């Protein structure tokens, strides 16, 4: 090679040299020696170059661990930051501004209603919401969702991956969601517990995704019967840190579809995970499900780490070593939670207009309560159902308007009082003094029965 003479020799900015000396042994011409003076800027002793013997072999560049340590001469001109004191000026990343690629709403031709199970309906909703990335780990009673996705997604060139665990599952979602894709999983209580670490990271890094948790009996391995004992977890315990996510509780197969679609919209609106909780009953319930007339073709959000030119400057990260910086980030997250609380409360009111006794229930227990209300109304009792659709934020505003007339609240749930705790917290935060409150509860994989609800209401002092 005749160009040997042009090979660049090294130069070093002392401030960027940590004095490790790895370059010293790499040099065959003994051009580099350890310095003797401490650099006042770094407190380290940088190396000293004597290039009289240098043949420009370049080995020292590959021995220097610092990106801006030993550098080829000739780069000084382009390397405008020789003087560390000049680096304080604004110097934006080279990366380009992301181009907006918005979602599009696509009309759907009319189809006959489906006759499907609740879990299946949620999967259909997700597909029509533009979800083509589903990750999961099989766990009863949520597996039908994963099974359906494994069958359907390949036909749409989507991806279903059965992960090695729920821990891996949630992290696949962290990756795909961070890349701006609509992704989801189906799981059940013990699996959801395993995902909490990742959910905390997703909330911290503002990554959207949808989790469908078909709750089963606990604690521990429990059983596969229907329970609602993850309400505390999804409303108050989404991993470590100041975390919240919108929690939606459908009650029918139709609502499983509708809410699955809504979940993706909310997840991306707020850049935050959304949790859909169902119970094993609802997941297994077959019913008539009407299809929407529009579907979503998702774009790529501006913040996504998609892996292309436009999004190169983006970062998905929950790490923030500056206490003030992290506090600011928490303030930002809390502002989001407040916006969710203000804008996303949802509830369904059934025969509440004249109700003096108000049942409060979600998921299948709400349907059982409706059955009970029908019988109680036949007996002339003014009973209604307040059904929170969002468990967090609790729809306190809708409830508040009813409380003037209500003489008794009865919380019907399949847990030791987790929905009631959410209700009481919401009442307390809203400074509302509630009417007398009682409950019908079952645990262990059993839902309260219609008869138990009726018996409880008939035994109330307001009724006797």
């Amino acid at each position, binding site marked *: 090679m005749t160009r040997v003479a042009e090979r660049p020799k090294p130069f070093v900015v002392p401030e960027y040299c940590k004095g*490790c000396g790895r370059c010293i042994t790499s040099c065959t011409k003994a051009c580099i020696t350890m310095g003797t003076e401490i650099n006042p800027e770094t407190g380290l002793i940088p190396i000293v170059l004597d290039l009289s013997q240098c043949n420009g072999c370049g080995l020292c560049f590959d021995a220097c661990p610092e990106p801006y340590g030993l550098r080829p001469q000739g780069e000084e001109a382009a390397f405008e930051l020789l003087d560390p004191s000049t680096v304080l000026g604004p110097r934006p990343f080279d990366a380009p501004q992301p181009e907006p690629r918005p979602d599009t709403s696509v009309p759907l031709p009319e189809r006959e209603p489906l006759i499907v199970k609740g879990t299946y309906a949620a999967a259909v909703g997700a597909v029509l919401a533009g979800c083509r990335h589903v990750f999961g780990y099989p766990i009863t009673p949520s597996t039908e969702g994963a099974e359906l996705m494994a069958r359907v997604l390949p036909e749409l060139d989507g991806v279903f991956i059965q992960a090695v665990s729920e821990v891996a599952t949630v992290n696949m979602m962290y990756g795909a969601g961070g890349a701006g*894709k609509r992704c989801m999983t189906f799981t059940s209580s013990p699996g959801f517990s395993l995902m909490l670490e990742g959910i905390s990271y997703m909330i911290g890094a503002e990554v959207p995704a949808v989790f469908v948790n078909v709750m089963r009996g606990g604690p521990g391995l429990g059983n596969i019967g229907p329970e609602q004992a993850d309400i505390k977890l999804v409303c108050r315990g989404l991993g470590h840190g100041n975390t919240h996510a919108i929690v939606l509780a459908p009650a029918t197969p139709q609502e499983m579809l509708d809410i699955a679609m809504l979940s993706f919209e909310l997840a991306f609106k707020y850049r935050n995970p959304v949790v859909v909780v169902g119970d094993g009953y609802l997941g297994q319930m077959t019913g008539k499900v009407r299809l929407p007339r529009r579907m979503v073709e998702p774009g790529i959000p501006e913040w996504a780490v998609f892996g292309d030119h436009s999004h190169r400057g983006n970062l998905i990260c929950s790490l923030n070593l500056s206490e003030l910086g992290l506090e600011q980030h928490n303030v930002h997250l809390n502002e989001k939670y407040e916006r969710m609380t203000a804008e996303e409360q949802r509830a369904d009111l059934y025969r509440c207009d004249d109700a003096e006794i108000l049942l409060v229930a979600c998921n299948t227990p709400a349907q059982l309560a409706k059955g009970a209300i029908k019988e109680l109304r036949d007996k002339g009792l003014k009973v209604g159902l307040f059904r929170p659709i969002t468990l967090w934020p609790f729809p306190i505003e809708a409830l508040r308007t009813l409380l003037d007339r209500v003489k008794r609240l009865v919380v019907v749930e399949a847990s030791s009082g987790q929905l009631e705790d959410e209700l009481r917290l919401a009442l307390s935060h809203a400074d509302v003094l509630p009417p007398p409150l009682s409950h019908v509860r079952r645990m262990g994989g059993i839902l309260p029965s219609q008869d138990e609800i009726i018996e409880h209401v008939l035994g109330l002092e307001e009724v006797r």
Partner: protein
Amino acid sequence: MSTSVFYHQFERHANGEGVNAHSTTYCPGCGHGLAQKFLAEAINELGVQDRTVLVSPVGCSVFSYYYFDVGNTQAPHGRAPAVAIGHKTANPDSIVICYQGDGDLASIGLAEIVSTAQLGIPITVIFVNNAIYGMTGGQMAPTTLIGQRTTTTPKGRTLLAGQPLKMAELISGLDGPVYVERVALYDNRRRTHAKRSIKKALELQVAGTGFAFVEVLSECPVHLGLEPEAAEDWVRDNMVPIFPLGVKKDTTDGAAFPVIPTARFDPEAALTAVGATTERPPRFAEEFPTHIDPEDISFKLAGSGGDGAQTAAMILTRSAINEGYDSTHIPSYGPESRGGTSYADVHVALKEVMSPAAPRPHVLVAFNAPSLAKFGPTVRPGGLVIYDSSVISARPDDLATEVRTVPVPFTGVAAELGAALVKNVVALGALQGATKVFPEETFLTAIRATLKQKCAMIPINEEAFKLGAKLAGEQVC
């Protein structure tokens, strides 16, 4: 040597001010800087900076996103390979790199790295093994050598603390990876080679060939308590005998990983995929069966697992929905559902099903005596009990007197047809014959739809249904 893949200024590092704007967080002499430099050069040389997504781990290299001017994601401890799968499947054109240390990859993240490697998805993993935990302050790593002192093996690692884990060998034993090599950084020759290996591992992803894994033996002078030069010698003299350098696996001339698809959003395809059709099932009923209830009829079908109660219930639900009514079916849970029994609750409503449970059914179909004993007393006054008279000898005493019973030999009829499996369809026929909830043709249409994939079974099922309907109908009329 120099590359624009590093940010010109590390703005994310302490706001990018002063010396920090151009210095890494790595201690003097740390091998991370070299491995990352080689990685940056490879990204640069292959021209994939825009497409690259770097997944930073937890550990000393947690701040990789300070330095690399590429798309960056910082992953939970050990989970980088799972995060990488998410990125790669989200955008198959992206070049996804997991950069992980020994605690991250070989300890807490073992399940993720092994399963991802076995999957073989084309990502590039750079595994930096320096035999110690750096960031947390010198604790034992899974790759710590026997006898090596760390803060959690103060007298040196013994067999009680386990033996060093040889990740390159472990990963190379899997089917998924196409390229696995262990390299080092302790002298010019190893560095030049390490650079080439890292570039090759990246090239294999650019070409879509498959999963590539490069283990880099690296120096941690601070926690080894050695000067950087001595740390290089330590790696050469102590690590290399336990972690031999070289290519552990190279099947890069084999078949490439399948092409990861890019999702489609065609409305027709989506509807077809979820099973939606334009076929409106024919209606045969003239009105809601108000002779049973004006607006909401509940059924319970109860038997043992294998009796087919759930399938019969599903066909009933389908029949009702086909007739334009609302209907639900739930397999029954609760304490009574233990022990291989199988109960189904079905509602058929004029407008909307409220409670899907059937605690007081209008109609009970009992496939065996225990089911009849359990649910018979729950049937509402004026209701109907249809039971398998092949296995239940007589009407139980505790049934309310105003509950009618219709005994039909489900099992016997099915046996005569030579297909024991169709006894649930005999029962369904009996349900129709006894209740006239919908016309026969409604059910037969639903049965045919249910058996679409097993056409050969349709005639015998139709016959079973008709026999059941006839035997029950004769008793009711």
